[in-house]
């Protein structure tokens, strides 16, 4: 039986008190609850504080480039559908540098779970605004305060027909680990935008700030209604909802791919003679 200890990783390099710890804990818990062994799981991360996470776990890890989590995860999942592939990274990683992949991975509905540690700031590079920083957020590079509007990943994902759109936060490990389990079990692309205090660089969106605002979507809330989901996703300010905003069953990318009909790619025997009939047609 797999236990939390099986997922014990390296010594962390995060600031003591950082929200990242909660996410790490919730992820381990979810995987153990799902009875997944470390070798069955692949975490793909980028570069940033969040993206260091897989080193603090113990499972297959591809810690790639800043912003390129999703394409690596996509390639890995296509090659080996048997792996549970989880993307992990920051708001800069996924919504800044990696914005284009975010759009198009949603369109593919490939069976990957994406955890975005949304601390609304660039942590590792020391505190610049991120796409999710609030207008007015002041940093050394934004001394007059952010003047662009804030990136709402949830409404954007809903607008793109994402099949699983959710939010949690690092301060509620039970909720987050429940959500991760739902997301991993969902067949298709699952987004979990995780609100996370950065105690060092985001003095606005603190633990307390979130604590005062966050509430769970009501039991009655119906995550099957896209328009309602869009509306809900727009809610932000004094009250911040968490939970599954939208969920839809639809075929995944790999389900449909002709090229996978012969079975998982990585299990296929490589057979040069395959090309003989093709060469024939050239004569």
């Amino acid at each position, binding site marked *: 039986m797999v236990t939390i200890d099986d997922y014990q990783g390296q010594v962390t390099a995060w600031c003591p008190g950082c929200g990242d710890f909660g996410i790490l804990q919730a992820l381990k818990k979810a995987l153990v609850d799902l009875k997944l062994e470390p*070798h069955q799981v692949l975490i793909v991360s980028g570069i940033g504080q969040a993206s260091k996470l897989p080193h603090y776990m113990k499972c297959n890890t591809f810690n790639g480039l800043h912003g390129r989590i*999703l394409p*690596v995860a996509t*390639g890995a999942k296509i090659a080996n559908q048997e*792996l549970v592939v989880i993307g992990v990274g920051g708001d800069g990683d996924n919504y800044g540098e990696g914005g284009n992949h975010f759009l*198009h991975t949603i369109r593919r509905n490939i069976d990957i779970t994406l955890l975005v540690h949304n601390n609304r700031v660039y942590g590792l590079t020391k505190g610049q605004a991120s796409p999710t920083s609030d207008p007015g957020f002041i940093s050394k590079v934004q001394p007059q305060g952010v003047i662009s509007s804030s990136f709402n990943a949830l409404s954007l994902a809903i607008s793109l027909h994402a099949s699983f759109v959710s939010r949690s936060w690092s301060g509620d490990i039970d909720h987050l680990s429940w959500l991760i389990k739902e997301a991993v079990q969902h067949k298709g692309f699952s987004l979990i935008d995780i609100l996370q205090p950065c105690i060092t660089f985001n003095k606005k969106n603190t633990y307390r700030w979130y604590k005062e605002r966050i509430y769970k979507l009501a039991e009655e809330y119906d995550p099957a209604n896209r328009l309602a989901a869009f509306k809900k996703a727009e809610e932000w300010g004094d009250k911040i909802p968490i939970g599954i905003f939208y969920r839809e069953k639809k075929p995944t990318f790999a389900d449909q791919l002709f*090229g*996978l009909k012969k079975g998982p790619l990585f299990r296929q025997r490589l057979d040069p003679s395959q090309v003989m009939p093709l060469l024939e047609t050239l004569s």
Partner: protein
Amino acid sequence: MSVDFTLKIGGEAGQGMQTIGYALSKTFARSGFHLFANQDYMSRIRGGHNFFQIRVKEEPVYASSEEVDILIALDKATVEMHRPELKEKGVIIFDGEHIDISGEPSHLLSVPLERLAREEGGNKLFSNSVAVGGALGILAYQFDILAQVLKEVFVKRGEEIVENNIKAARAGYDFMQKNYKDFCLSPLRSGRSDKKMLISGNEALSLGAMAAGCKFMSAYPMTPSTGIITYLAGKAKQCGLVAEQAEDEIAAINMAIGASFAGVRAMVATSGGGFSLMVEALGLAGMTETPLVIIEAQRSGPSTGLPTRTAQGDLEFVLHASQGEFPRAIFAPATVEDAFWSVVKAFNVAEKYQVPVIIMSDQHLADSYLTCKKFDVSKVKIERGIISDAELAKIKDYKRHRFTQSGISPRALPSQEGRIVITDSDEHDEEGHLSEDLEIANKMAQKRLKKRQGLASEIEPPKVYPHENTEIVLIGWGSTYGALREALDVLINKGMDVSLMHFQEIWPFPAQFVSSILSKAKKSFCVENNATGQLAHIIRAETGKEVTAKILKFDGRPFSWQYIIRELKKGGKRWSL
């Protein structure tokens, strides 16, 4: 005299030159001739001026010629542009009812292409089939073979289209035989060569990938590399592979790296602009030691440049691309046959050394068709360099990036029970965890760079033809081989003491070999499709030796053997402005 003639079909984009040029090529190829066909097209879908040029020869042929025997002019511009290329006895086939050509009429073969097309096929769209039939008519060659080829080429579009094309071609054939009997070249008899394939560079690269067991390919469309994903996507179902069009080139290469990490042979194909966007992830492959094959199909730059034209302007870029230092291999196939085998080898080298391997193609190679003997697929060996389950079971403490003598660490795949595979774009320890330790950083960098030695031992030195120890050495790389080879044969025939040193594998650089060849020659000329002489620059960096002169061309058009000889007579140039 043995057969050697050139047929050129010119017209606007959208007039179907590619299709009929291919059909005609196939007809000759099937008839036992050697053949080289190249394409020149604009970056537009309709209009403008494109051509398809076929050189047919009894003896092996390597490149096109500047002189044309039969010019099929589907529009007036073609006549204007290409008339000067016509041989003394050359003819122009054109539609006199639509194009008005002045000048010496003796070689102007007006054929009512459109009228015959309408009469026989019911649509003027069949004009070019009429023209093709006409061309065959003037050669008095067997019509049956063309008919069969047309059938094969158009079969997907339905029986009626097939029939109409054949009828149109037949009409052209008959018209020619009837009206221009005197102009007929000496009737063509079948060539003596045994059965050949007719294959383009892009097809050969794609087939090489499939033969090597490439299971994942991702790309963003970009001329002249698009043909590769097109080919592979077409075979995906049949052969069980995935060819994915990515949202951009950055995604394409990162997907391929992900797929490779997860255990399949993976490849990307692009051109210079797309490769620019892949540069960061090239370093990722280097750092994480993930095998990867990249086809970089060069076109004329800088920037968007001439998007549909050829060049060899990316060599030094590819050699040094990405920050920091890590080993890589660079191949530059010289012919379509080479193209096939280079991909096969690239996958083996990539996996054996866990490095990126880059294949430099270009528009000229990608789009040209050549006849060649069927590839002997039984010679394809697949060496994966992945440790077996049995070996893995013996390792207690599996570490993806273990320090080893060769620099090659044991590569396991994720998902094997009891082992986990970890890697990182940051500098990392043997396990793959990120590390900032000075000692580890030093050792890990050395471990990676050590692989250069093994890699170097894989490299074939440049081919020297016909033999070493000549007074003059021509030097080339990649797709210029054809023109160089043709030039060489002419020069040798003229009694010149000259040889060709041609690179098909460029990096790690075979410095010693090259140095010794150059030491023996009195004069050396580096022939490159670029403006600065990049291979010459690398040769000097690696051997200290400077070539006597460079013969360069950078207008987007390939070399002809005639051009090379002309420039050689001028003494080449140290290109300075």
